[in-house]
């Protein structure tokens, strides 16, 4: 899949909202400033990824894991992020676990499904690519994180 230039940008609306919520009320943010921060965020992702990847390589692994990202933050001198990141990760993992369990229950009710699909859940990056359609919309994490086709209609995650 070829990447168009805009694919390496993050959605404007989301970036703007994050900025607005961080700054005191009533502060004006120029368009240029907004676009600069958005670009900076993309660069941050690249920098963090490259850094995390070094740790994975050092650990002779091919898959980036949570520890690699946290080590990268340390390396990049963003130690201040580590505690809040760890907290969020815990919540995230609990949510994922909850979803998994709910799916398992549903499966127990319906006829047997492919069990191995469950295990591949976390490792299967490919499915997530089909998730997003519209580049400019905000997407709640609950939609991003779950593989397509395995959330029964009407199911609400614990977010």
């Amino acid at each position, binding site marked *: 899949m070829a990447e168009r230039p805009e694919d390496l940008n993050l959605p404007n609306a989301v970036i703007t909202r994050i900025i607005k919520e961080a700054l005191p009320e009533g502060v004006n943010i*120029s368009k240029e400033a907004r676009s600069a921060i958005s670009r900076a965020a993309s660069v941050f992702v690249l920098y963090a990824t490259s850094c995390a990847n070094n740790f994975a390589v050092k650990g002779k692994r091919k898959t980036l894991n949570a520890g690699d990202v946290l080590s990268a933050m340390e390396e990049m001198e963003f130690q201040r992020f580590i505690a809040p990141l760890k907290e*969020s990760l815990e919540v995230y993992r609990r949510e994922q676990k909850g979803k998994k369990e709910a799916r398992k229950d549903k499966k127990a009710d319906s006829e047997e499904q492919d069990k191995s699909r469950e295990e591949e859940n976390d490792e299967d990056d490919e499915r997530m690519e089909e998730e997003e359609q519209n580049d400019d919309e905000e997407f709640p994490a609950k939609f991003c994180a779950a593989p397509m086709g395995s959330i029964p209609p009407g199911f609400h995650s614990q977010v």
Partner: protein
Amino acid sequence: MAAARLSGGDNRLVSLPLSRIRVIMKSSPEVSSINQDALFLTAKATELFVQYLATYSYKHGRGKEKRSLTYSDLSHTAEESETFQFLADILPKKILASKYLKMLEREKRDGKVEDDEEDEDDDDKEEESEEEDDES
């Protein structure tokens, strides 16, 4: 508990779309695969980064006087702060076109025979002063 709502006013754990973060991460050729937790953490870290960059720049910048955050506040941060130095190339300082022309003239007079090539900073906004950001 606040832990679950770290991303601000809304109820989601993270607002940046994980799939887009993943696209950016995968654009690095040396990366093979990314575990789900790592993807989540990267997205969350990016949010924290945006918040940090914005607040830091506002706090240390001149825009504060006018209750605004401008490009120049950001490029100032990239230049002055070690933490944000990795952004220096993408957030260059801007100068007035007139100042730049004067620099060129001075260099010519001082015996630098070579004309400057096309400025790498192809940003057309060189015409603007640093303060003349678009109001959003």
